Each structure stands twice: as C-alpha cells, then as structure tokens.
C-alpha cells in the first residue's frame, strides 16, 4: 500500500472515531472503535479493489484527487453505518398489532430466498460487474481487458474555469452551513428564508458540478438537467392543473378521466414518433397550422437546439401525463371536503383554497411523483429522443442516458459505458437524497 493511501485511511479512521464518539448510548471506547473501523474500512473498500492505483505516478493529479474523493465518500458511508449501529436501539412498539415470530431462524430466509436470488442475479451481480467494467478498457469482441484505474471517470473531468467551480462550490457550502444554522434557530426564522437558502445552495452546487466537467461532458450534464427539470416541473404543474379540472364532478367524468390516462400506456419511442409527426417542419400538422394562420412556417426543431429541447420536454410530459393524472385525481378525491368548505367559509378565494388547502394536502403525492418523474426523465427518455432528434442538433438533446447507449452501441465500449452509467446513478442517488432532505421534510401525511 502506498504511503499516502495509508495516511488517508488513517485520517478517515480518526475522523470516524471522533464523529461516532460524539453521540450514542454505548461506551465511549466502543463508539470510537466502531467509528474508526467504519471510516477506515469504508475508505479501504473503495481503494483496495483498484489496487490504490490513483496514487501511482503514472496517473495525473486529477486522478489522485478523484481517488481521495472516492475514499472520502467510502469513509462517509462507513461512518454513517457505524453511527447507525451505535445509535440507541428503538424500543419495540408495544402498541403495534401483534405479530408472530418465526420459530426457526432459517424459515424467513427460506421464504425470502426466491426474491433474494432474483435480486442477486439481476441486480447485485450486474451492478458489481458494472463497477468492475468501469475501471477497464474493454469491448464485447475481445475477452482481453486492460486496467484503466479511474481514467474512464477522470477523462470527463477537466475544469476549463476552475475558479468558477470553486466559487460556486464555496457558495453552496456557505448555503448549507447557513441552512444548518437556520435549522438550529428553529421557528424564529421565517420559512421563506430557509427556502431561499436551500435553493441557493442547491443551485450553486449543481452549477459548480457543471464546471468540473470537460466541455463535451458539461453539455451532456447541462442538457440532462434542462430536459429532466423541464419534464418534471412542467409535467407536475400541467398534470395538477388538468387533474383539478378533471376532478370536478361533471357528467361523464369517469369516461374522460379514463381516457386521460391513455398516454401512459404508450411506449416512449411511440411518443417520439407521434411528436415527430406533429412537429415535423415540412409535413407536420403544427407547421400546417402556422403556415395557414400566421403565414409563416414552423422553424425546424431538428436544427434549432432550443426548440429541439422543448419538443423533447413536451413529448416526455405528454408521455408521463396519464401517470401523474392518475395519482393526482386519486389524491384530490381523498381531500376531505369539509376542509375546503371551512376555507370557503373563512372567505378564501378559489386560488387561496387551491394554494393553501389543496396543494399541501397533495404534498405526499407530489413528493412521490417528483421521485418517479425524475427517474423517468433520467432513464427512460431514450426512445423518445431517438425518434425525435437522435440527440441532436449538435448534442442539444443528448442526455446522459442517450450518451451512455451511444457509447456502448456504436463504440462497443464497455468501460466508458459502465463509468458513465455509474455517474448517472450517482447523480440520481444524490438528487433523490437532496429531495428527501429538503422537500421530503415538508411533506405532511395528514
């Protein structure tokens, strides 16, 4: 083991010991030991499988730094696990409905085994293979593989404006610190202040990330963000609006509510195909209308970057609309009418009733939909994009998932494909965690 690696692991162990020792019910030496083990092993677990290669002289500084960041992340996970293990045990809930206990310890495992087998074969094993491939130069047509350390990742890193990334990252950190402080202040601080601080820190961190990547990959990152955020925000706003209208008790409501759900049954490529037919600059129906009514043809979305992104977003929103409506219509039906009536008696206008009664009551559903819609936007827009724009023009709709499939499909490049899918995975995990911490806390389950 190279000395810097040993040093890094020791630091991780010390930090772990310090952090875990601060709280918990077990004895202090035990807590410190657990923290040290968690931190040290966590850092070791990510650096040992690649043989501490980031510390070797043949790689660049950015590989070195990337290796350290990885070890820090591993250590953080290990420390968190240690902390959870040392936390006071929750007392079993005596009020809970009585549950039987298995007499044989192996019985639950036996019953779980089919599920576990499926998970191992179809989820864990491929995931481990992906991690392994991400450190290799490999292609399908050759069993030979060449070790690449973390090059598949670090080749995407190349800050052209490092100072900007640093400034933004600093701003994000300050924001987070301010957020923590505000939280300590409790109710004395206005809610809006906290919202602003959290938004500023999140946006500057996301922007800082953008400036870490090379020009090529930054475009993929920014496009992914634009299309995902556009799809999720636009989709939820529009579907909530339509659901609110469709929810009104009118004759035939059940029929058109059912009809509204149809787009969900259509696969993403078909959505792409439909919008291709609608928006085509030469033969599309929209072009026909604009020509007839406004006497000007529609600009070609396939050669206009902003239009291309817009069309992809619209197609994706349309595709997820039925799914979102399903949940919102169901959610609206669960809002007790007396709450709305009470607000009405208090003199709340229709907008105020919507804003202060309906939207908060729907918050659990909105929260759930944000997570599922984000997952859709990140992972399942490939078919739509492939039919509409093929990632063009000039990469304007080349989202991360599209890029991964292109890398593998035309290049046959298993290593890069795996590395980029790890990055996308990390991005989605990060975003979801941020989501749970920020919005998730405000969700009221009534």
């Amino acid at each position, binding site marked *: 083991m190279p000395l810097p690696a040993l040093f890094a692991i020791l630091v991780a162990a010390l930090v772990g010991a310090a952090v875990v020792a601060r709280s918990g019910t077990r004895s202090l030496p035990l807590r410190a030991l657990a923290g040290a083990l968690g931190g040290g092993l966590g850092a070791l677990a990510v650096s040992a499988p690649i043989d501490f290669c980031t510390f070797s002289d043949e790689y660049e500084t950015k590989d070195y730094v990337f290796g350290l960041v990885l070890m820090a992340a591993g250590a953080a996970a290990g420390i968190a696990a240690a902390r959870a293990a040392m936390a006071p045990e929750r007392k079993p809930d005596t009020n809970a409905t009585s549950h039987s206990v298995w007499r044989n310890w192996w019985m639950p495992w036996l019953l779980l085994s089919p599920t576990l087998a499926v998970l191992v074969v179809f989820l864990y094993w491929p995931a481990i293979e992906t991690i392994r491939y991400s450190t290799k130069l490999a292609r399908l*047509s050759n*069993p030979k593989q060449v070790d690449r350390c973390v090059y598949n990742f670090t080749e995407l890193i190349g800050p052209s404006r490092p100072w900007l990334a640093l400034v933004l990252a600093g701003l994000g950190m300050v924001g987070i610190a301010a957020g923590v402080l505000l939280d300590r202040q409790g109710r004395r601080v206005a809610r809006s202040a906290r919202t602003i601080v959290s938004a500023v820190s999140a946006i500057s961190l996301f922007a800082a990330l953008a400036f870490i990547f090379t020009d090529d990959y930054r475009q993929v990152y920014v496009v992914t963000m634009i299309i995902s955020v556009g799809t999720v925000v636009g989709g939820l706003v529009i579907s909530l609006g339509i659901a609110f209208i469709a929810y009104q008790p009118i004759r035939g409501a059940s029929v058109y509510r059912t009809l509204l759900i149809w787009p969900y049954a*259509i696969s*993403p490529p078909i959505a792409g195909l439909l919008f291709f037919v609608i928006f085509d600059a030469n033969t599309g129906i929209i072009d026909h209308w604009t020509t007839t009514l406004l006497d000007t043809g529609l600009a070609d979305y*396939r050669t206009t970057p902003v239009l291309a992104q817009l069309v992809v977003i619209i197609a994706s929103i349309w595709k997820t609309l039925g799914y979102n409506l399903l949940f919102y219509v169901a959610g609206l039906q669960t809002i007790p009418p007396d709450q709305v009536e009470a607000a009405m008696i208090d003199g709340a206008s229709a907008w105020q009733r919507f804003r202060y009664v309906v939207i908060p009551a729907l918050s659990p559903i909105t929260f759930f939909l944000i997570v599922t819609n984000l997952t859709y936007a990140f992972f399942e827009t490939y078919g739509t994009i492939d039919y509409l724009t093929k990632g063009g023009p000039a990469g304007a709709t080349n989202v991360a998932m599209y890029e991964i499939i292109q890398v593998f499909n035309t290049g*046959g490049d298993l290593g890069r494909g795996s590395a980029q899918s790890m990055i996308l995975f990390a991005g989605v995990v990060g975003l979801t965690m941020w989501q749970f911490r920020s919005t998730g806390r405000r969700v009221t389950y009534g």
Partner: protein
Amino acid sequence: MREQRRTRRFAALALAATVVLAACGDDDDSDADDEPATEESTDEPATDDEPADEPAADDEPAAEPAGDDEEASGDDAVIPVWIAFEDYRLDWTNEVAAAFNEQVDGYSVEITGFASYNDAFDAAIQAINSGEPPAVVHFFEAATQEARDALAGNGEPVFADLEAIIDGRTEVAGVPVVLDDVVASAATYYQLDGSYTSMPWNTSSAIMFLNRTLLDAAGVEGTPATWQELEAACEAFMASDAATDSCVTWPNHSWFVEQDIALQGELLANNDNGRSGRADEVFIDSDAMVDYVTWWKGMADQGYYTYTGTQRDWGGTYDLFAAQNVPFLLYSSSDTTALTDEGANGGFEVEAAFLPRNGEATGGGALIGGATNWVINGLDETTQDGAIAWVNFLSNPENAASWHQTTGYIPITETAVSNLEAEGYFDENPNQRIASEQLAASPDTPATTGALVGNFVAIRDVITESIESVLVNGDDPAEAMAAAQEDAQALLDEYNLLFADG
C-alpha cells in the same frame, strides 16, 4: 381535394392503429434495439418514406423460419443465418432461402432479421459465448477490421477465414463457389493478401440522383460532375423561377465523407489505408477533409444544402427528394430502384449520375459500401459446408441479378453483370448501371480501396458529430476536424491496445 382528405384520414387511422398495436406489442423497451435498420449501416437507407411504418416491428428481430418447414425432412442440418435487414430485403432473402432448401439436399437455412449490423454482431458474440452460435452473420464493410479481429469469450476468433474453410473446393454441397467471379471493386475491398475472409453480398456506391423535370423547369442544363459545377447549378437553380426551398441534400453520414476523400485520391489512415499493415494513425484533419467540409459548409451557408438535423438521416433526405423539395440528392445506389420508382409514380424524371468530386483534385475514385456474410468459426463440418454453400448460393448469377433489380445494390458477380447486359436490362434501366460504372472507373489505389481501421464505427460517429457542429453551430471546419482527429486517434489507439499483437 376530397381525395386528399380521404388519404389523410386513412393515414390518421393507420397511425392510430399502429399506436395501439405498438402499445400492446412492445412494452417500455426503450433500448438500443429501437434503432431503425438504417442506423449503423452504411448503405441501407429506409425505402419506406413514412417513419411511421411498423414501429413495432423495429423492436425485435423477426424470426421467420425460411421455406416450408413441412417440406424439410427432420434430418436436415439447420443453418441459422442472421442478417441485418428487417424490411423487403428480409422478405427477398427468405424467398431465396426457400429456393435453397428446395434445391440443396440435407440443409435447411433459417433466416433471422436484426435491426442493425451491430445488433446482429453483438447477438452473435453472445450466442457463441452461450454455446448456440448462428452459422452465418451479415456484417458491414466499416467493421471489416473488427470482424477479422473479433474474439469470442474463449479467446477463439469469432469468424472463420472463408477461403481457408473452402480449402480450394470449387463446389460445396453441390453449390458452385462464385468467389472468383466477384467484381473487382468488392474483391479489392474484402480481400486480405489476395484471399477473401468473408463473402461479399450487398454492395453499393454513393451516387447522385437528379430530378431532371425540376431542373428543366428551372432551365438548368447538364449534369454536374464536380463540387464546383454542382454549386454553379444550384446557384442557377435557386435564382430561377422554379426554385424550391433548397437545392441539394445528403445524409450526414461518414460514408459520404470517405467517398469524397477517396475521390480526391487521399488516404484516411496510414499504412496504405490499413491495407499494407495495421493502421495506427488516422488522418481526419487532412487538407482534403478540411476542403470538403469547408465546401459543404459553404453550400449550407448559401442555402443550397439542407441539413435535416440528424446524423445518418437516410429517411429525411430521401423524403426531401421524393417530395421534389430538392432537385439533387446524393445517396446510396442501394435505393436506385426505389428512387427511380418515386419519379415514375410522382410524375418526374429521376436520373442517376456519378458522385460529384473536387474539380481541383485528380487521381481518386469512388468506394464501395455494404456488407458481407461471415461464417462463424468452429462449426462442425456439415454445418460449415452448409454455410459456405448458402453464402455462395445467395450470390450466384441468378440471385445476384435479382438482388440488383430488387434494390439497386450492384450485381456482385461479373456473370450477373453480363447476363443483365445481354438481357438489355441496363439499356431499359440506365440508372441501374451508374454505380457499377462509377466503381469500375475508380483506379486501383490504396485511397480508393477504402480504409481498414479498427474501431471505425465509433470513429465514423466522431466525424459526423464534428460535421454537425460545423453545420448547426457554425464551428470552423479546420478546428472541428482537428478536434475530431484527436478523438478518433484516441479511439484507434485504444482499439489497437486491445487487438494489436503484443
């Protein structure tokens, strides 16, 4: 008017039906398989001009046992053949397979269609690794180097060397070997040290199509043979009363770039385009390349060239010509038959001509494109002989001629050419002759033989991406191609790291 409305209503109905079918048939399988057949291939533009055609069918390989299974006796050795077509070309192949099963005793060929060459190739490697290989796989010219290099999981080559397994026989399972008869342009492309590693099948060249009716209306005469003449013809056309939205289009596909480099007599890779030794250097930023991209950008900037906005867009460019939006189309000869029919059905005259070349460069010539059939390595002797018999049967004079007439791919053997000539077919269908003539007029030099480069499929994408940035974002051609050179060279270096000896 009413008729038009009816057509539209029918189209809407058809679309609705397709959507419903697709919704039932294919689930959220938004994988790579959705790519239409034309994607990765050099020269199989979709002849169906409606992209709405059978979206569901694109998704999975349509496994169709060829011929009448009842007729095949149970003892027949099954020869699984995988081809990268799913349209009318798959139907044609199925018919030939039925004839083969009837005429050749002891074998039963079963054709499976795939959405793209890469899909068929990837599936073949995985099938070999899981112990159930096909016998014949159809793979395209740009990946010839990779096909020769490819190793299965056990470290053995994926494909057998065709001439080595033929072993000098002139007849296999009663089917005559036709390799000696293959036309020169395909022979030089696919031979390694004078012997074939695979059997040439669909072979084409990039040629120009003209809407003569539209040009006559604009008073533009003659057939441009050079970039400069094409530009002048476009200037005259766009200035005339018959002017349409623009003058010319072609797909942003690396194949056209390669054609135009070869037509200038320049190389794309070192070691004689990879022909005298493994290529380890590419020349994406050569003067010939920059000149070509600069001319292309100029045509677009003047409004003469229409970029459809997506790379490798065979369908969109075809449609612009078929709808008479442009009088010139640079396209693959593989669709000569379909494009000529478009004119006949649409009431305009379609003429085929040689691809325009740089008038300031001499000594070059056009390239082939297309694909060959590869026999899988390590088959038992019976299956292997059946596979050899099938690939030769597919290109026998009768089938080669029928294939040419159906599609526009050149007749792959000399006998097929002379038979068609004797029938008077070319005199009746002068457009069908152009691709063969263009290839025959090409001198035999390393530049016009075509580049043999590892990772070429990915390198091609680097080229088209850079050109797209020039056409859409207005990047400087020299800078864009210099960046492409760097990326392409890195891709080749990585490939050679895995495959080159040592």
